[in-house]
């Protein structure tokens, strides 16, 4: 172990939040890229030794955390019910804020097709999103973005690490079925109910 690596271990051990490579570099008077190398080596050594903790890069810095496989033991020890699950609605709103930030409540509502006030409040109360700016336009709507806690909760180093949204754009088969469902012209020309009913019958039965 080099003195620098030891110092990193010592500092990260007493930090209350992730410590950035820049700060570590400044404190140790070495370059940030050297810090990155040392941290990588440390993380690797814990993995190799099969330790119960790990050094991870999250929310802009390095931090120690318990290894996921040990969750069953740590769970018994940690007794805070703060990890209540988010509803599907809240998760969707969270995804929209994450990918489109800064974004207003109205924009979130427009995408989801339903009112977003309640879920946005929930997300703010959980500390996952926060007001980051005000819109220039009339009304000066509050614009929301994700927080550091959001990054921590997802184990992300920065918002750039979010999986690209393009990966979630529905495939051609979904697009096709949507189009087909809504397309007037491609509607089946044959009668719809199998039988030989007249048009008017179809009309009546379909509405």
């Amino acid at each position, binding site marked *: 172990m080099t003195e620098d690596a030891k110092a990193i271990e010592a500092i990260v051990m007493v930090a*209350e939040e992730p410590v950035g490579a820049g700060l570590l570099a400044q404190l140790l008077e070495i370059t940030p890229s050297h810090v990155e190398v040392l941290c990588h080596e440390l993380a690797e050594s814990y993995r190799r030794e099969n330790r119960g903790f790990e050094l991870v890069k999250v929310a802009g810095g390095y931090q*120690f955390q318990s290894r996921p496989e040990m969750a069953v033991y740590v769970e018994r020890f*940690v007794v805070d019910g703060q990890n209540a699950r988010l509803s*599907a609605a809240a*998760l969707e709103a969270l995804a929209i804020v994450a*990918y489109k930030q800064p974004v207003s409540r109205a924009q979130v509502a427009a995408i989801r097709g*339903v*009112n977003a006030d309640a879920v946005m409040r929930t997300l703010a109360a959980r500390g996952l999103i926060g007001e980051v700016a005000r819109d220039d336009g009339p009304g000066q709507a509050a614009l929301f973005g994700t927080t550091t806690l959001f990054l921590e909760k997802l184990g992300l180093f920065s918002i750039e690490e979010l999986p690209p949204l393009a990966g979630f754009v529905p495939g051609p088969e979904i697009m096709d079925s949507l189009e087909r469902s809504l397309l*007037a012209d491609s509607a089946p020309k044959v009668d719809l109910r199998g039988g030989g009913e007249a048009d008017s019958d179809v009309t009546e039965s379909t509405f």
Partner: protein
Amino acid sequence: MPYTVSTPVFEGPFDLLLHLISSDKVELWEVSLADIVDGYVATIAELGDGLDLETATEFLLIAAVLLELKTRRLLPGRENVEAEEEFALWEERDLLVARLLECKTFKDASRELERRIDEASRSWPRRVGPGELYQSARPDVMAGVTPERLRDVMQRVLEPKPVAKVELTHVAPVRVSVAEAVAGLVVALPERQRVCFTDLVVGVRERLEVIVCFLALLELYKQGCVDLEQATTFGTLQVIWLGENTTDVAGDLVVVEDYEG
């Protein structure tokens, strides 16, 4: 009423539509809209007090679009449908498809976020701090914090949050109604036959009155009493009186409704 429409399988109209369409349970053209509406109504009934007005409204809007699309296709005489109308219909449909796709994209993205949250929640971060030993070396964060400052902060926290209000005091009351302006114009115009709009409103100070005068002209144009000419965009607007040279026309005019402000 708090918004609580949320079940594991369905929330909101877009979701419903997506669910129905993408699960291939519904080919909108093959299965009746009535079925969809029934299903929706049933869901609403299940939700009981959880019903959200906006959700219901949004659904109605979408249902109306679908209904319209479908009606036009099913009704006889489709070939007479104006190209423009058809085009508008296509636009509506494209818009709907685009919105549904966007909605689905974020829905799928949210599943991935959830997966990551679950994964990350299996680890707990160390949040312990330097401890007693280094307490004295830490900067004194309470420097400059007085009891009075703490009280001021508390007071601000407890203040009710201001509710956004639309400021209306700057809106001038409407002095002239469109009907009155029309009545004035049918007296003034026959005398001048041809006049440019700027001359017509010379001496009028309030912008609103200019607008009212313009609306009155449009009304007269609609009723064929005047012709309007404008050589270039933003050019001078010429008003040509087409009516009889008497003021009797006023009596023939359809009563113009007041524009509610």
